[in-house]
């Protein structure tokens, strides 16, 4: 088995497995990341996303498989030899060193000439706008400044691949969105390959060229953000992305006189507009549709519409989430705040199954 390395791949992970004793943490993962691509590893805590990043960095010894960076097999190389820079959640700045010493530590270890070190620090400090901070100790910096320095530490090393391990999780919401934009700008400027681990779907959606959604040490789906959002391959991916989450109706897939339809407790949703992934088979299934893809009292003609009674109304500022019972199951609809009904009111809802996702009842795979 002579596996070839994709020539355009910047980072390539092949058959990577990691076991801690009897526990299998990563299960034979494959991942090809193109040069200059921004890839986000997304998943709930414990899904193995940080572990995968640590394996790529060489901070964890893998049990099986191979890792290539820039076409070079780095599976058994030390982290420093892999041409990577890494930014950590806790910033991991050396507390006893000034910002300047923090930035130069790796270069000093490698024996880089002094003038070269100075040149690179100047460049990184300029890009990140941390020149005034160079002589301070990390304790004297704010969270945002610390994270900039941490990015700078990766920057000065002039590496091919940047690894980010939940870099914004320790910051408050406002700073987080600011730095998110900065990281995006940085990527546009440097055009490095970046691998970014997060559990925050907004970070993933906004930053990524492609998202790898992980669960239980397995990559569930690896694709561009809109595909992941609109055409999730399974029920887990569908439920993990989106806030408020996708509505799921449990029921059955049936082939009737009007073609395929989804039936659940008194309702029947025609699926003539739905784009099937594979040939449908009659049986138990789940019908998923996002709250924003459902219209409320629109007066338009939808392929499917029905009336329901409003149970609870949750105003969320810009819009309002309306909770109803559809086929005896909880169902939410997102409407503009100005059009929110009151609890107890009877309303009409309608949607086009084209925007829905169907999953089979057993494995939860997209149909």
């Amino acid at each position, binding site marked *: 088995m002579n596996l070839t390395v994709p020539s355009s791949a910047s980072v390539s992970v092949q058959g990577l497995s990691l076991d801690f004793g009897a526990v299998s943490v990563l299960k034979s993962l494959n991942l090809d990341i193109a040069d200059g691509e921004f890839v986000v590893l997304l998943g709930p805590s414990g899904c193995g996303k940080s572990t995968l990043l640590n394996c790529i960095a*060489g901070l964890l010894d893998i049990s099986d498989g191979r890792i290539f960076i820039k076409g070079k097999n780095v599976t058994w190389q030390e982290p420093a030899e892999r041409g990577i820079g890494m930014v950590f959640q806790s910033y991991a700045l050396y507390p006893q060193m000034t910002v300047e010493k923090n930035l130069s530590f790796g270069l000093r270890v490698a024996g880089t000439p002094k003038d070269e070190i100075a040149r690179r620090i100047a460049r990184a400090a300029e890009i990140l706008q941390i020149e005034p901070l160079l002589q301070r100790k990390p304790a004297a910096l704010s969270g945002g400044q610390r994270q900039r320095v941490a990015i700078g*530490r990766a920057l000065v090393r002039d590496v091919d691949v940047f690894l980010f391990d939940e870099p914004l999780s320790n910051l408050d919401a406002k700073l987080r969105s600011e730095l998110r934009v900065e990281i995006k700008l940085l990527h546009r400027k440097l055009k490095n390959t970046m691998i970014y681990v997060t559990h925050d779907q907004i970070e993933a959606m906004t930053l990524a060229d492609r998202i790898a959604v992980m669960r239980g040490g397995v990559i569930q789906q690896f694709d561009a953000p809109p595909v992941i959002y609109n055409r999730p391959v399974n029920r887990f991916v569908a439920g993990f992305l989106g806030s408020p989450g996708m509505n799921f109706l449990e029921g059955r897939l049936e082939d009737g006189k009007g073609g395929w339809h989804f039936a659940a407790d008194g309702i029947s949703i025609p699926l003539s507009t739905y784009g099937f992934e594979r040939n449908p088979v009659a049986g138990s299934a789940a019908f998923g549709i996002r709250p924003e893809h459902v219209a409320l009292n629109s007066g338009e003609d939808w392929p499917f519409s029905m009336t329901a009674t409003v149970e609870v109304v949750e105003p969320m500022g810009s819009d309002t989430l309306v909770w109803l019972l559809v086929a005896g199951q909880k169902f939410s609809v997102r409407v503009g705040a100005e059009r929110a009904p009151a609890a107890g009111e009877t309303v009409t809802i309608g949607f086009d199954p084209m925007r829905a996702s169907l999953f089979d009842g057993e494995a939860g795979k997209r149909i």
Partner: protein
Amino acid sequence: MSVATADTTSAADGPRGRKPRRTLSRRNIILYGTLFVVAVYYLLPLYVMVVTSLKGMPEIRLGHIFAPPVEITFQPWVKAWAEACTGLNCDGLSRGFWNSVRITVPSVILSIAIASVNGYALANWRFKGAEVFFTILIVGAFIPYQVMLYPIVIILREIGLYGTLTGLVLVHSIFGMPILTLLFRNYFASLPEELFKAARVDGAGFWGIYLRIMLPMSLPIFVVAVIIQITGIWNDFLFGVVYTKPDLYPMTVQLNNIVNSVQGVKEYNVNMAATLLTGLVPLLVYFVSGKLFVRGIAAGAVKG
């Protein structure tokens, strides 16, 4: 008007404002009284040591141990330091003091150097089997030393260090290892792991990370370790008496030999001066280090 005022007063008659503090409540009298009596009890031996060491022998024979000295004399201190006799020699505690210094200083340095590197390796560079050895080490801390006394005599004799200061330093380093390794391992494990990862990404190796990242961050724990070791090694008696020869005896052994030697008339003032002199180094460490000592004994308690 007056009626209205009366009404308000009766309504607001209840407690208001700052609650009067009774500093001399019954509870406080009992509490502070008990603590005071206990404190006096704990201080008494120290007081008796000091006053006895400052009296002349005639005064000791006439008075009682709690009486303050009528005529202060430093003669007992001089004698304890320079002239007191053990069964073998008559040059006082000074010999033992310098022996103890020559034992304690290298032992403290060597044991902490070994244990800190050990703890660092255990916390950050886990390798197969490391935990097994560490567990043996910790269990070993509870094994009575008596079981290992003689095998160590044999080992030291084989490598030609039996009866030398170097041999004793080695023994102190060995028996200091469990508790110090535990101390350092726990401390290094409490440092953020990402710091260690960042240093590895930066290309620093085992010794580079230890010397340039870990050491500068660990000053407090080193101070705690130094406190544990100075007091522990200075106060040791058993290893001193087993593994050295009479002219290399540490201060505690020397002290015991002076006080409990059967020859001659007992000079209680000299004995107490000698006892105080021997206790002075750990007491000084204790009073200077304060809270760090408390932190140290919480960890060092395992040593027993």
